[in-house]
């Protein structure tokens, strides 16, 4: 077997939640029987943006904030691949925030994992969009990506976990991966992954979470009810976790990609087809 790059070791601080997230991704790939060479793991910039080095699949370190459009491009170009995009709350909700709503709207077949720790770790402790009480602007509320996801009508899988509940995180990650692999669209999974160095929220978050999976009154298949429930919980300073919403909507691939097999192979059959088509196009301009 040809030797390729040696799988990396995590660079995170001891106690960082990201270990658990990486573990959940690997567990899900394993459980779903997904081959490493058929997987592209893309990660943004930040502490979370190193996870691709540690999995053993094809890995790409994206531009800051651009992991989602890059993942969408890859998923459209070769729909046979398993596409896993990962990033932090700064990468996904701040510099890449504009892409998030469009990514949610497009519903491409991929798994997007956000490791949310409410802080910029790599640049040493600045407020992120999910910081509960921002130091610089305490009157601002934290952004809630699940509410955003619920408000966009083409989302099909929204989930949130917390690394202290690894069994649930593993379950959500596997369900998300299977959702995207089944061609149902984008699985958006946010994992509360506290930063022990700059924003150690373990105690607060553990006390504030409300597990909707264990809540018999919560309906994760009804967008409106789920939105209202999440909104109410947030108003009560609770953090909803679990499978927030699941539904059906056409995926981006189903509307944009005509054919799936060997998309990147520039074979003779394709060349001949292009030539035939272009002959007709050229004829249109001939005078």
């Amino acid at each position: 077997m040809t030797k390729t790059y040696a799988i990396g070791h995590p660079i995170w601080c001891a106690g960082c939640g990201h270990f658990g997230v990486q573990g959940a991704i690997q567990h899900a790939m394993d459980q779903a029987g997904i081959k490493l060479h058929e997987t592209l793991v893309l990660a943004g910039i930040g502490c979370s943006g190193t996870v691709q080095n540690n999995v053993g699949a094809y890995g790409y370190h994206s531009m800051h904030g651009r992991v989602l459009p890059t993942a969408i491009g890859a998923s459209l170009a070769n729909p046979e691949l398993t596409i896993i995009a990962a990033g932090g709350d700064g990468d996904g909700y701040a510099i890449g925030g504009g892409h998030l709503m469009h990514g949610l709207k497009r519903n491409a077949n991929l798994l997007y994992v956000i490791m949310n720790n409410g802080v910029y770790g790599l640049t040493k402790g600045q407020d992120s969009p999910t910081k509960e009480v921002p130091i610089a602007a305490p009157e601002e509320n934290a952004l809630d990506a699940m509410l955003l996801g619920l408000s966009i009508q083409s989302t099909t899988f929204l989930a949130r976990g917390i690394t202290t509940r690894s069994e649930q995180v593993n379950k959500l990650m596997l369900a998300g991966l299977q959702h995207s692999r089944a061609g149902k669209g984008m699985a958006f999974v946010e994992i509360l992954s506290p930063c022990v160095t700059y924003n150690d929220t373990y105690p607060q978050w553990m006390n504030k979470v409300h597990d909707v999976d264990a809540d018999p009154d919560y309906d994760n298949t009804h967008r409106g009810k789920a939105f209202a429930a999440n909104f109410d919980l947030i108003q009560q300073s609770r953090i909803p976790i679990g499978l927030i919403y699941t539904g059906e909507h056409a995926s981006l691939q189903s509307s944009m990609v005509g054919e799936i097999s060997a998309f990147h192979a520039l074979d003779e059959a394709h060349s001949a087809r292009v030539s035939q088509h272009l002959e007709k196009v050229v004829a249109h301009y001939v005078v």
Partner: protein
Amino acid sequence: MSVATYDISAMVSKDLLQGKVRKDITFMVAGQGGDGSLTIIALLSKVLLQRGYSIYRTSNIASRIKGGHAAAFMRATSESRSCLGDRIDILVAFDIEAVQKASAKLADDCVVVFDSSRGTLPPGLVPDTGLFIPVPFSRLAVRDLRRDLFKNSLGFGLLGRIIGLPDEEAEACLRQQFKKLSATQLEPNLRALKEGQAFAENAGIAGSQSILTLPEQAKQGERMFISGNHAVAMGFMAAGGRFFAGYPITPATDVMNFLAQHLPAVGGVVMQAEDELAAINVVIGAALTGVRAMTGSSGPGVALMQESIGHCGSAEIPLVIIDCQRSGPSTGMPTKPEQSDINMLTRGGNGDYPHIVLAPGDPVECFHAGVLATNLASRAQCPVIVALDAVCHDDFTVPKFDLDAVVIDMGKRVTESDLNQMEQYRRYEITDDGISAMSFPGTPNAMNLVTGNERDEWGRVTTEPGNRVRMMDKRTRKLATVKPMLPKAVEWGDATSPIGIIGVGILGAVIAEATERLEQQGHRFHCHRPRTLWPVPQESIDFINSHERVYIIEQSEGAQLAALLRSEGAEPGRIVSILRYDGLQYTAGEIMQEILARETAA
């Protein structure tokens, strides 16, 4: 059809009906956006292309959906040209503003057809030696056809008579132009056409008594009438390009529209992204899977893409970027052409990274640049930018593209059988030619890590100083490797002349026409048009340093091309810059004047 009797205030005098033969004629049709100026020019283009003329077509429109002043221009010549004539020979004006705008450029023997529905023309705007024909187009169209909309077909009917076009040929052309219209929509257009012809008849312009004669020209081989945008997109497809993402922007949207129409038919994908940052990164994602991918934009959009372009240079990702340059900075004048992205395209972005900038000058070269950029991106695994100027949106008559001559170069890629022979696979292996073989997801045993950060041969991020230097040098070597593939400059004129002229892109052909005319007056120049802007072509620097005086004509206030060549060794004392940044294109006559004025002073 009721042929109305008109109050023809200026009957055409018989002595003007000479049927003067023209082989080079410039038309302008102008009015408010929506008046149909572009349609009349489109109809005229069709007619004259059929007669064997070469057509150069351009427009001058406002950046709004409807309204604003819009002018369409067309020059018909026996030889292929890339600019308008010095003077406007025929003007169809739907309002006073159109005549005011054209006035200074009207030829002495011009014909001006003026829509007099909204008032009379102030005196002094049309030369006394010209022919002025006021026609109440709008009033006639509303009175007889119930819609102002039909005035352009009416105008075309009259214009056909002026240029000696047989009525049946005009009708055939109109039918072809409006072939998508239903019979009920076509019918009033045909009536309008006949009404225009009837008006001409009443004015005495009939049959052999046309004002001008445009005889059939000998057609030279099979020709196409096409813009640079369509040509470059076609080149990308011909080279196996299968993925495009972009964000709408004038004047680059045509590239996306063309591909949206044609790529899906061959199994490709076109995606309209939420912004240019997304567009280029969607394309990067596609390129990571091995698909040949491209994005396109104009200056402001390319500025947003700058970080990604540098990233691809570092991460060694093949990518094609079309920049349809327009007037800047920032939003600038969105519908006006310029060549002022050269600084950004050649030296934009942070850090040092390999990339290539091509600058084609006509649609044939745009087609080849589309092919070459796609091949070069794969070969050099770096961003390749195709810098277009007004060539992107104007239409030109050029020889038919040779699709059979297209060669596809996929660059160095590892296959499963290659891997069987390899003990190890390193994505960023240091090689003599600087190029390391790519592998793509889906290939077993060839997993790689791709990153824009500095990394070792395996793709692992590192800041180790020795590695940094080796990697930087490796990436730089790639440009030397692909240098023989880069388009050489085109030179013409008198090689012994001590005076040189340089222009890039569309300006090449305009300079060629100017120097052709200057030569007839006994002035000889040696001309040079670079077709690669980055890496900076040494031949252009040598050209400057081997001439006593070199005029560099360009469309930027900052003399960006001259600055680029100076930065790599062209001697400043030899360079005389001629700059235009008013949003207009040069004509050959204007370039002649610019050069003669300076030569006289020299």
